[in-house]
């Protein structure tokens, strides 16, 4: 998102100079903001990696949680040869697309989940008075480097599933295989940010945001034909989760939608992601404007 504070960030650097701020300084401003973020990011990575045992454990546990979801799919297919008309390999393709999109979003913005702690402890007050973007600071201050493990594992799952399901390596298919997880990441990231904003009004919102973030991930992990009735309509089309993995997977598999939607829907993921990001930015801004410190 565009940060209006980018120009103000350079102010401390220019403050002790007596010469007036020139256009050259202003041009330098975004670069120095980027440098600040780079420094913050480097400090975070170094700090987290310095507790080696804890870091390794966190890395492993992230992979294990993904493994648990994967195990569930495998166990279900141990019982039945097909789930709602989809074979194991086809199902795993859907699972892989959803898992990689979610893992990327979780890596980049997953820590926004801790928003409610930030509001309760007053950390947000400190963040608000600094001359940098609020959201970007919160993300950089608490980046989940350990979630890299999840990204790597889900990439492997996706690659194996695409091979097993017999996805033909045409340029269009390869493009879709790359674009879909990225669009999914933006979409899940938007859901993360939008639901975390609830904490501005409702501090003890607890796991509520998990209903949409992790619930959305679980929903997208299975072929849409599994779900039924109003629930499928609400989640797939009302909230847009259908475009994250299921419709792109149908194109990759070269099969028509059993529910009857047109095939081009699979290419609409990026459009949906952009719309979701815009909406999330709007919700976030409204939240920040309405923020009142808990006074702690």
């Amino acid at each position, binding site marked *: 998102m565009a940060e209006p504070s980018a120009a103000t960030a350079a102010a401390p650097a220019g403050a002790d100079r007596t010469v007036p701020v020139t256009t050259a300084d202003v041009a330098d401003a975004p670069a120095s903001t980027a440098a600040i973020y780079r420094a913050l990011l480097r400090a975070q990575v170094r700090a987290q990696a310095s*507790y080696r*045992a*804890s870091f390794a*454990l*966190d890395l492993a*546990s992230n992979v*294990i*949680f993904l493994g*648990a*979801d994967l*195990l*569930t799919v495998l*166990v*279900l297919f*141990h*019982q*039945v*040869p*097909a*789930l*709602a008309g989809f074979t194991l390999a086809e199902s795993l393709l859907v699972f892989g697309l959803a898992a990689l999109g979610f893992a990327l979003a979780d890596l980049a913005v997953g820590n926004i989940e801790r928003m409610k702690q930030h509001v309760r402890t007053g950390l947000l007050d400190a963040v608000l008075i600094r001359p940098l973007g609020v959201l970007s600071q919160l993300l950089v201050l608490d980046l989940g480097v350990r979630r890299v493990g999840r990204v790597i594992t889900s990439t492997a799952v996706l690659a194996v599933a695409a091979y097993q399901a017999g996805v033909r390596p045409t340029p269009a298919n390869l493009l879709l295989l790359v674009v879909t997880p990225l669009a999914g990441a933006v979409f899940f990231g938007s859901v993360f940010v939008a639901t975390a904003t609830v904490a501005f009004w*409702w*501090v*003890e*919102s*607890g*796991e*509520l945001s*998990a*209903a*949409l973030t992790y*619930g959305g991930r*679980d*929903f997208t992990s*299975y072929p849409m*034909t*599994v*779900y*039924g009735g109003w*629930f499928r309509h609400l989640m797939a089309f009302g909230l847009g989760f259908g475009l994250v993995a299921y419709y792109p997977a149908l194109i990759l598999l070269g099969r028509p939608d059993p529910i009857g939607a047109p095939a081009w829907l699979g290419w609409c993921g990026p459009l949906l992601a952009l719309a979701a990001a815009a909406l999330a930015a709007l919700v976030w801004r409204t939240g920040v404007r309405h923020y009142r410190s808990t006074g702690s």
Partner: protein
Amino acid sequence: MGFITATADRLPIRNFTESAGLIRTLGASGFRRFSTYRQATVAATATNTMFGFLRTYVMLAVAGSAAALGGQAAGYDAPRLVTYVWAGQGLIGVVLLWGWTDLADRIRSGDVVTDLLRPVHPVLGYLLPDLGRAAYALLTRFTVPIAVGALAFDMYVPRRAATYPLFALSVLLALLVCFAGRFLANAAAYWLLDSRGVLMTWAVCSGVLGGLYFPIRFLPDWAAAVLYFGTPFPSLLQVPLDVLVERDPPLSQLGLLGLQAGWAVLLLWGCVAVQRRAERRLVVQGG
């Protein structure tokens, strides 16, 4: 004036009225404490309900595929799986599968020393409020998902009257096993500076191996047997849910309860033993 140390004898409980009053007071404290977290209860219940829908549809798809082949998925028909999912979503909050770090937090901060000074054994001092908490969860986090599930889907209702008291007993035993497991995982903080790993292991195992993600009976028989007899996890959700949906005949239901009781006794004894060892080595930092 003598020194009060962690290993000193605790005040003996003199008579029945006193111990009944103790149970009542500590239990009520847990009930009252959690009844004040209204927003958190609403949020958790809503989340459990959402996942109830997701898991129900997946299980119905499994039951549908199995029925198309003229069979059942590991002995569960569709209504049984629906009851299994929704009662399971309700029980998460009752047995409190994960998210309990009270003891680990108090060990890290040193507050645990006040627990040791109380005239109640620490294990009992945590168990009784936990029973009160579970009673509150039974009224809120258990009933709402069951009601939603019953409204939205075709649920299996137990046919045998004896199933209801057996289920109630099984939930109580599951709570004891779960409490003891959580206590032990938390108690790792006495020895480890960073006990998150142990707590995370508990969280993932209790979910996957406890029957939340999928019924353990879906696994090959040998794997299920290893889990039932080798680990306490199926005693947390799988057993009470199997009792509720009458997956097995009455005699097997009793056998399952016996297994749960065995794990409850073993783990609670483990809690007392671990607590005793921990108290002998505990050094509270700071002034």
